[in-house]
């Protein structure tokens, strides 16, 4: 056992998994989280059900948080941020600022799990009117409603009859500068579509897409399920403009399979906003002097054969801080990072 703890920055799914794994391996760990609560985006953005198994997000995160409780090896600092770092592994000195003021800690290694932020639709190349029309919302707004137990039309508070999702908002776009695919939005949109159809059997739901990215088992677990069981309509062609006619918003796109421009009224439009590196991720990259890869996420070295080592020895990253990641990616990377961090220390101890 090393004297200094492993530092885990970020208390979302990746951070929680990393911290618990480090403790499981018998090492001390300190978890620093900016918000006042643990759980990351699933909690802070009020996710309803997790993709694809529809497990209650809050309950799932609570399980992970509970696994850390009462563990002597685990120290948690919520409402705190890392504001400085000096030295190098296995002797890092980090400055942490919290409610009680600033403290300097000696840590052995660091695992950055600061994740992503959702794309702001105001920066979208297309004209989606998120800041103009009440009935244009994002996946996050939709999750919040679903978690509260329903799905309503924001402008009237009534049940909508026609809802559509627009995929790839803020992703796959050279003009915005986010040239990646955010990996999870197709899955989340299908999941939300299923939830909406369950709440509102009379409501028609459409998904406007370029490609449906339904990796592995998502194909039939959520895509076929949405289409076959829940009768969600998938239209190949993305929307370029949302305008208003009278009380209703109208989406303008092309139905590429028919090869025709279309304009259809909708009661609610859900923008499937993508991921971007969070402010915390960019901050930590600066503080720990970690190079970013070409899209702006923290660079890991070693390609697909090494998903968690950054360019600096003894400093690791996991989850969406290194690129678009779903929950499985984040959890898997977190475990790998914990193993690599502890393994690094054990190897040092052997020499």
């Amino acid at each position, binding site marked *: 056992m090393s004297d200094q703890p492993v530092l885990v920055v970020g208390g979302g799914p990746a951070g929680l998994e990393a911290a618990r794994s480090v403790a499981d391996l018998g090492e001390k760990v300190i978890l620093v989280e900016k918000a006042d609560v643990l759980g990351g985006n699933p909690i802070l953005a009020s996710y309803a059900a997790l993709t694809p198994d529809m497990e209650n997000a809050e309950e799932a995160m609570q399980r992970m948080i509970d696994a850390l409780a009462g563990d002597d090896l685990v120290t948690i600092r919520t409402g705190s941020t890392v504001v400085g770092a000096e030295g190098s592994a296995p002797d890092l000195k980090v400055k942490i600022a919290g409610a009680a003021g600033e403290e300097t800690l000696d840590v052995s290694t660091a695992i950055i799990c600061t994740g992503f932020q959702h794309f*702001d639709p*105001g*920066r979208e190349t297309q*004209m989606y*009117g*998120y*800041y*103009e*029309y*009440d009935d*244009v*919302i994002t996946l996050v*707004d939709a999750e*919040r*409603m679903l*978690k*509260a137990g*329903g799905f*309503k039309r*924001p*402008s009237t*508070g009534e049940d909508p009859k026609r809802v559509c999702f627009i995929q790839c908002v803020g992703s796959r776009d050279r*003009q*915005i*500068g*986010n040239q990646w695919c955010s990996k999870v939005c197709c899955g989340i949109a299908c999941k939300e579509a299923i939830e909406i159809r369950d709440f509102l059997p009379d409501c028609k739901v459409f998904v406007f897409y370029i490609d449906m990215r339904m990796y592995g088992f998502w194909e039939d677990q959520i895509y076929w399920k949405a289409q076959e069981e829940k009768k969600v309509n998938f239209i190949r062609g993305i929307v370029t*403009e949302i*305008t*208003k*006619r*009278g009380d209703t918003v*109208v989406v303008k796109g092309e139905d590429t399979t028919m090869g025709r421009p279309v304009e259809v009224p909708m009661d609610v439009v859900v923008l499937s906003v993508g991921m971007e590196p969070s402010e915390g991720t960019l901050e930590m990259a600066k503080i720990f002097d970690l190079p970013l890869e070409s899209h702006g996420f923290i660079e890991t070295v070693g390609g697909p054969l090494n998903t968690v080592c950054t360019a600096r020895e003894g400093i690791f990253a996991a989850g969406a801080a290194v690129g678009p990641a779903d929950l499985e990616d984040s959890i898997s990377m977190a475990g790998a990072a914990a193993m690599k961090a502890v393994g690094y220390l054990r190897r040092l101890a052997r020499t």
Partner: protein
Amino acid sequence: MKQLPLKAKERVFDRKGKMPSEHYREQLFELEAKGELIVHRLTDEHKPVEIETKFGRTKRIPLQNTWHHKSCGQCGHIPGYSTTIFWLHRELGYAYCDPKEQTSCTAWNYYASSTSNPAAQAAVALRNFAQAYEDGFFPLIHCGTSYGHYKEVREQLIHHKELRDQVRRVLDKLGKPMVFPEEVVHYSEWVHVVRDQIAERQVKNFENVTVTVHPACHYHKLIAEDAIYDSELYDGQRTAVVSSVVRALGAKLADYSTWHDCCGFGFRHILVSRDFSRSFATIRKIERMKEEADPDVTLTHDTGCVTTLDKSQFAAQAHDRKIGIPVLADSQFAALAMGAHPYMVCQLHWHGVDNRPLLEKMGIDHEKAWAEFEVQAERVKSGEVEFISWEDC
């Protein structure tokens, strides 16, 4: 339901975020440093005003000592448009140059027929810019297409050394320097920047005037990052020009669902395939405006747009379409607000749709004004004067 998402009005858009990595102004200065061209700079003499463009970058707009790059369609068919741009400068006390040593940008022809090539187009542009530079005035572009096209030329010149070399060879033969202005400025950007000064001199009450705005495709879609956006208008999501002037003059700004649509000018279509322009303008723009906003006037800031929207409405009557919205340029609207003569200055008799009801709503006695115009016309017919001058207006 407490968990309903925030209403749009409560959502706050913070426009920090990624900017396009290339900046044309920096790239122009880099080329100048390499000796490839001269950048015509904005200086204090132009009294430049800083505004924000689409991604938050700043751009400076000159107020005076500008070289007015005129528009073919305006000067040819809508003379009140050019006239009011000059009139506003004169009234606000900003010196300008109205050159004879100016050619068309030739982009109308280029987009209509492609009977040209990038080198010719760039040479025409740079000949005009060199002339302005030599004359000592900063270019101010009257037409939306000239503006968009010159932005396109700028991008092509910056990215293609081959093109720069071709154009340099052409300019050398003409004995003209290779110059590019620091900014390509559209006159509607100037009107936007002086709108408060116009409002100060407003003598007509526009409170009861409902206006729809049509933004020109070539203004804000061509090289989209270079267009004025303002967080106080449309939350910075749509271009602010023209709409800002409507607000400043106290008129009612009305929205309609086809705001983002093209007018249907088509460049070639408006001249030789007019069924398309006419159909598109009527069905997609005018009828929508009429049904959804019922405006007293629609304003735009480009030659082609004024032409298409104004001239398409007559023939549509034969098909019982809901039309009849007068079409004006923002400069004509601003001039009328300041008390400009509707016929001597705004030249409204060259327009298609009957704008007399609009004038009445603005409190302008058009019958009296037309009588005044006819008196002046007599002076010309009789040979008393050869031309009407600014003083006669």
